[in-house]
């Protein structure tokens, strides 16, 4: 392969280059992490104490800065005392890949310290339910309102100015209010996600609705559709796929608000787990939790993309630019879209 073909402006890459690059996008960060973790002379700014020797404050397993270690060692040697011994190590907040990999399993198996505290899977499930209710409530109001705003100037003028205004207020500032109104349990958390999502959602859905080709509306009118029928038979089906894609993007934003929401009132869910594990210095569990959030997010998006193709068979395949679409292109036979009429059969029919 010629190098300049990799830099062709807005051209597809060869299949194999695509695959290699996708692997690389995961392998490069993983490789850097692995190298820093396992190659002793790369970074490793700490010393892990094995034998404290005559260093008064040192204990086995303690991490000391390399500079401090060298100074203390020199001082003790000069005084004729036994110097501490140890090996170079990374700070506690950078566990090695294998530790995180193990934590992906053990996090689920670790019993909570107090019987009143939830297991990891219970924390995760709690987070998922908060997201689900927050996003569902927001969508129930936001999608119809957005479609109305995109269809009728009346609703747009009435709603959008105030929505634009509120949307600039960061959702977390409503935290204290939400707790005062809705109590300390799940209510304010769901409210924060609703506030964070709803106002964006109205504007995004309204804009998607406005992108409907007006010629379709005119065609429908010449076929006898009018007023509300025009909305139900043309506007809604005409924008539904775009709105569906919007929802997938907005769901990602909802996860961002989750972390703030879970700190409000009593800390719960995945955020509680992460804070708690960080307090115990179980950083591998923290990384495991973060990775699992990423996996849940990606998994949901892939599932929704797959569902979308089932629900909306008229959409061209390449409209889907998510990771799954890329996967499907790479998998053998994955390029198969819905059947295109071949040019020969088309010309036969046209010749009739």
């Amino acid at each position: 392969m010629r190098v300049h073909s990799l830099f062709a402006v807005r051209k597809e890459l060869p299949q194999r280059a695509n695959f290699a690059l996708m692997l690389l996008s995961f392998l490069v960060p993983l490789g850097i992490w692995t190298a820093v973790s396992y190659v002793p002379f790369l970074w490793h700014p700490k010393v892990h104490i094995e034998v404290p020797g005559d260093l008064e404050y040192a204990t086995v397993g303690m991490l000391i800065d390399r500079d401090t270690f060298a100074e203390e060692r020199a001082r003790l040697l000069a005084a004729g005392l036994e110097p501490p011994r140890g090996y170079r190590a990374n700070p506690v907040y950078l566990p090695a890949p294998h530790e995180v990999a193990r934590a992906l399993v053990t996090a689920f198996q670790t019993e909570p310290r107090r019987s009143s505290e939830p297991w990891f899977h219970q924390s995760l499930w709690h987070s998922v339910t908060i997201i689900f209710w927050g996003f569902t409530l927001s969508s129930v109001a936001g999608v119809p309102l957005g479609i109305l705003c995109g269809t009728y100037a009346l609703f747009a003028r009435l709603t959008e100015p105030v929505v634009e205004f509120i949307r600039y207020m960061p959702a977390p500032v409503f935290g204290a209010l939400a707790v005062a109104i809705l109590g300390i349990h799940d209510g304010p958390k769901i409210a924060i996600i609703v506030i964070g999502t709803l106002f964006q959602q109205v504007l995004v859905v309204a804009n998607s609705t406005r992108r409907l080709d007006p010629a379709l509306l005119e065609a429908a009118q010449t076929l006898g559709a009018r007023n509300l029928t025009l909305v139900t038979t043309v506007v809604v089906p005409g924008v539904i796929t775009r709105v569906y894609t919007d929802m997938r993007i907005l769901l990602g934003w909802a996860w961002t608000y989750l972390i703030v929401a879970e700190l409000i009132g009593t800390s719960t869910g995945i955020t509680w787990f992460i804070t708690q594990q960080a307090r115990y210095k179980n950083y591998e569990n923290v990384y495991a939790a973060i990775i699992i959030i990423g996996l849940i997010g990606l998994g949901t998006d892939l599932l929704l993309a797959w569902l979308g193709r089932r629900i909306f068979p008229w959409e061209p395949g390449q409209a889907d630019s998510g990771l799954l679409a890329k996967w499907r292109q790479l998998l053998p036979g994955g390029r198969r879209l819905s059947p295109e009429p071949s040019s020969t059969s088309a010309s036969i029919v046209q010749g009739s």
Partner: protein
Amino acid sequence: MATPLEQLPQSPQVRAHFEALAKREVVLRVEGLTKVFSSPQGETVALRDVSFVGHRRELLCVIGASGCGKSTLVRVLAGLEAPTSGSVRVGDEEVRGPGPDRGMVFQQYTLFPWLTVRQNIMFGLKRRGMAAGIADREARQWIDLVGLTAFQDAYPRQLSGGMQQRVAIARALANQPQVLLMDEPFSALDAQTRARLQRHLLEIWRNVNLTIVFITHDLDEATYLADRILVLRPHPGEVEALIEVPVPRPRSPEQFLSPEFLATKRVLEKLIYSDDESDEAEAPMLRLTRVGDEVF
């Protein structure tokens, strides 16, 4: 008011055809139609005092240079734009908005992408409250008529442009309109497909009780299809002439070289292009080749 009529020599057969046509009832009556667009920059007169009639089963082409208001005209006829003054009547009723009595085929593809070919054709039938089963059966007949039986369950994006426009025609016809408005429906297609669809349209029209108003900027297309051609003059859009096409029916592509066909085209050319050629002739030609490099 009288419309200037450009008279071309007619054979007795053609003469008889137009006499019969004039005796048929008037389906479409346009009177003193004026359309002014107002904007903060000022007013634009798109159409001024346009009057004409369309008889039952007449194929009327509207032609003119770009900016002559022919698209505005068809949109007013469809009811998508309200006239500033004047009136449009279909049968006995004045047009006050879009409606299924005037089918329309647009220049751009306007099939509903989320519906299959058959569902697209059923769209208008369902709006009329027809039961799904009957609508389905009717839709199949129209699909057969435009020759797309094999594609009735395909989505529009799976069809070529020509096939999409056939479905659009079938979709408009399924409503059994009195008038079919066609706004440059074939102009986005390649030459072969366009020729095929023109032939196809004439065939369909022969079998359907339908008055067609066909907008085009293509002289061949207008001469090939039309009974009469309404020529519009731009800035503002006004009727320049109304031409009775002396080419006998049934039409065929061989007639493109017949004397009547060529005479009609010559008249159209003179009417449409005579005004704007003068300013081009004055412009000096810039020479970008070397001396001794002549190609002729």
